[in-house]
């Protein structure tokens, strides 16, 4: 895009720090108000986007578009400390303004708001204008008030990023933002993180989380249609408390813990996993290495009856169905869900694990990310058939609401589909909401697990759409609350401690719990959460 008339000036404003930028734009506005005819101000309120936006590319592209208009309309662009951008320019194009520009598309400042709104609509908050267009002769006062407010903010806050980040998060987020742009650094970091992964005890890098279902019907075999298969150890039986408010753990997912890896890296000053996560491909590479190590551990026969070691740790305390007859009224424990890459499922190690699990009647589900499936769909199809042949449930993981709107993940025929909850779901624009709801209906709500259900609002949103399976921090708190009610040692623990110990895979992480059997089982049977349909799902974890 073309170099703007005000380029040098703008760079000066950027480079001088936030207070200087606010001062410069305020002075420029005061100056222009002396001859306001034909001048307009466009303010792009990037600070009003939903975090993690604005991401670096939002800032870069928006700035490029504004610069383009500035070049044709004798304008200047300012970037303020809160990441808002201000374009001051002439309302109509100046022939001289376009000199030296080879090909830029003429972008009228009056047409810019519509373009910017279309580009940024996915990250907009429902309330608050994202773009303000103020003709200086009519709305000079509003503009001056805005720039005065920014100047005041800048003077009060010497560190401009702190208005949107707590001090605790500043370092990490700034580092992650930097890494998102540091292309070469990302690969170097992936090398370093990969070494740490290889050198770590695998259990220390894993976490577990239990998913629940409300009401009767606890696993895919209960779903009508063509998908469900018999899951060993999950025969039909009467389960007490199968009322509408009953809560059943259905599976416990073992996954790679970014927080645990962060903790191991912190002392070595090698950077942050967030840097690797900034590139989805490097992150998947890292995750697949971890999958391989986990699978290798799990598939090792260490006892005459098969299994042993890590697998024992995962199924201890009834986490997966034990090889024994269940007494009447007793439900099987939650199934064990593993995150695996497609090549891992097609490997010999997985075939060995499947044999061990069949022999020991351990119910296993495998979670494959949508991205992993799409990178080689033919291999995914082979993996799907391998899982079906072993009677294992296939879960399609990592499906965001945006992905659900633009592709058809249900065409991959998973047994369960994990839809990632986002607060954005509460205020999706009408058309997007309709597309998403139609997608859930096509998937079949009975096959959807609402993942990352961190709040009560998430559960309410899901229940209203017929979803009965949930996983996330709010579910963790619900399960912990039900354990604390039933546990004789509850007086020694807080809700948060119970949540954290349940998530831990390492012995150290579970120290302090005096009822490990209950901790591993997830919940006493049956757990009843009252008033789900109409009211409140209660517990909250105190900070």
């Amino acid at each position, binding site marked *: 895009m073309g170099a703007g008339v005000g380029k040098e000036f703008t760079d000066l404003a950027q480079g001088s720090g936030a207070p200087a930028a606010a001062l410069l734009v305020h002075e420029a506005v005061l100056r222009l108000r002396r001859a306001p005819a034909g001048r307009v101000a466009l303010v792009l309120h990037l600070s009003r986007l939903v975090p993690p936006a604005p991401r670096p*590319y939002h800032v870069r592209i928006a700035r490029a578009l504004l610069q383009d208009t500035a070049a044709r309309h004798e304008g200047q662009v300012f970037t303020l400390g809160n990441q808002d951008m201000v374009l001051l320019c002439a309302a109509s194009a100046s022939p001289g303004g376009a000199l030296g520009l080879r090909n830029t598309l003429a972008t009228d400042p009056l047409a810019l708001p519509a373009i910017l709104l279309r580009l940024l609509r996915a990250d907009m908050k429902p309330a608050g204008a994202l773009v303000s267009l103020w003709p200086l002769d009519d709305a000079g006062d509003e503009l001056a008030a805005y720039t005065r407010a920014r100047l005041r903010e800048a003077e009060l806050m010497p560190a401009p990023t702190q208005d949107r980040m707590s001090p605790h998060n500043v370092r990490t987020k700034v580092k992650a933002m930097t890494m998102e742009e540091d292309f070469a650094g990302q690969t170097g970091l992936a090398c370093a993180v990969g070494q740490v992964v290889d050198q770590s005890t695998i259990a220390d890098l894993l976490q577990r989380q239990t998913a629940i279902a409300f009401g009767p019907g606890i696993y895919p075999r209960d779903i009508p249609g063509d998908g469900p298969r018999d899951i060993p150890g999950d025969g039909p039986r009467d389960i007490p408390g199968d009322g509408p408010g009953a809560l059943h753990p259905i599976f416990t997912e073992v996954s790679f813990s970014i927080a645990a890896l962060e903790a191991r890296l912190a002392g070595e000053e090698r950077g942050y996993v967030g840097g690797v996560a900034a590139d989805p491909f490097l992150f998947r590479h890292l995750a697949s290495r971890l999958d391989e190590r986990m699978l290798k551990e799990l598939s090792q026969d260490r006892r005459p009856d098969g299994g042993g070691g890590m697998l024992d740790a995962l199924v201890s305390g009834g986490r997966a169905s034990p090889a024994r007859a269940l007494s009447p009224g007793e439900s099987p424990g939650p199934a064990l869900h593993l995150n695996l890459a497609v090549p891992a499922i097609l490997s010999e190690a997985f075939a060995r694990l499947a044999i061990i699990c069949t022999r020991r009647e351990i119910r296993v589900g495998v979670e494959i990310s949508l991205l992993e499936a799409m990178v080689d769909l033919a291999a995914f199809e082979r993996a799907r058939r391998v899982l079906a042949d072993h009677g294992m449930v296939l879960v399609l993981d990592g499906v965001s609401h945006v992905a659900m709107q633009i592709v058809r993940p249900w065409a991959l025929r998973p047994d369960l589909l994990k839809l990632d909850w986002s607060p954005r779901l509460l205020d999706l624009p009408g058309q997007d909401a309709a597309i998403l709801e139609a997608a859930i209906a096509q998937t079949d709500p009975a096959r959807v697990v609402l993942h990352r259900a961190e709040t009560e609002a998430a559960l309410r949103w899901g229940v209203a759409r017929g979803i009965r399976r949930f996983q996330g921090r709010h579910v963790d708190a619900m399960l912990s609350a039900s354990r604390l009610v039933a546990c004789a040692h509850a007086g020694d623990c807080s809700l948060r401690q119970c949540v954290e110990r349940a998530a831990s895979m390492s012995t150290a992480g579970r120290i302090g719990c005096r009822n490990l059997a209950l901790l591993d089982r997830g919940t006493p049977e049956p757990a009843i959460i009252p008033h789900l349909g109409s009211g409140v799902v209660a517990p909250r974890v105190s900070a």
Partner: protein
Amino acid sequence: MISLAKRREPASAETATHRQEAAQLVAYLHECAMAGIARRACIVHLARLSADRMRPHHLRLARAALEPLAVADRARLFTLPNRNIVVIWRGRADSAVAASRTAIEHLFADGDEVISPGPLWEDIDLPAALDRLLLVAEQSIGPKPASVPMPGSGQAFDAVTLQALELLLVRADVARFVRRHPVFIRTTSGGFRKAWERRMLSIDELAESLAPEHAPKSNNWLFLRLTRTLDRRMLALLSAPGELAGAGPFAINLNVASILSPSFLRFDEALPAGLRGRVTIDLQPADVLADPAAFLFARDFARTRGYRLMLCDVCADVLPVVPLDRLGLDLLWLRWSPDCLTEAFAALVADPARLVLGDADTNEAVAWGTSVGITLFQGRAAAET
């Protein structure tokens, strides 16, 4: 040695035939699934027999034992590379099934004792047990190699190698690895006219030159990451003064992240005015899903700047997952394969005017594309017409 070679030759030819039959079975099963018509099948698990009862004459006798099933409606028999036999038919054929089962029972009886055919005979209902049958077919073929190794390759492609390669690419002259593949449009007279050309870096040649010991395609994730590095080099190349002077319409393969990078802004600035609106950006399905929010932003930004967008490298099995309208893209590059030949697949081709049929190297591909209304082709058959 000579006699040994002679003895092996027919066996090898026979295995090749059986592999072909297994592939035909997989294709046939896909066709059955799309048609949705109920069929029945049986698997005779000869692979479960001991080696002394798996000789060629056993196979011939087993096939003969299954002859009663030949009278069933649309019966088809497939012999798999591991000697298992699959028969598929439509409708009821109870007496024929019973006769065949009895014949197999007696054929593989151990001495005077008639063995239970249970482990040898498996009944299948289609399409309910489609997955089971597909697995049996594919397992008989054996594992598919994860990728095609490059000549001379062998060492693992890991993050350390990637880092080294990225550093090399900073200074390497990549211009000699640029390849141009024309896309043709069918004219009203039945011939072909070049519509645009796809400009892309030959990654195989580039890797062979810069890292001959390694096979980047052996690691999907690191390979995708490498394509982002190559995007930057390609964009830099196209942004060089004079590089696009006199150029016709073209397409470049980019990652979403690359469209949002400073390199793309520089390319956009350097793009001659005459090419504005005549450049297509090719995107990969996996890359679109790597960050869907970034994709939506990049898509709308590219549109604002006058670029067309094409989803490329879409195989027949991916098409149902990536609807063009939902993605909001202009074009879709569909890789030709015989899997496209089914009527059910043709029904999936909703908007043929927006499809480019890729790998159209045969007249059969062009004929199929034309029959479903596709007018844009890339491949030798289109070029040669």
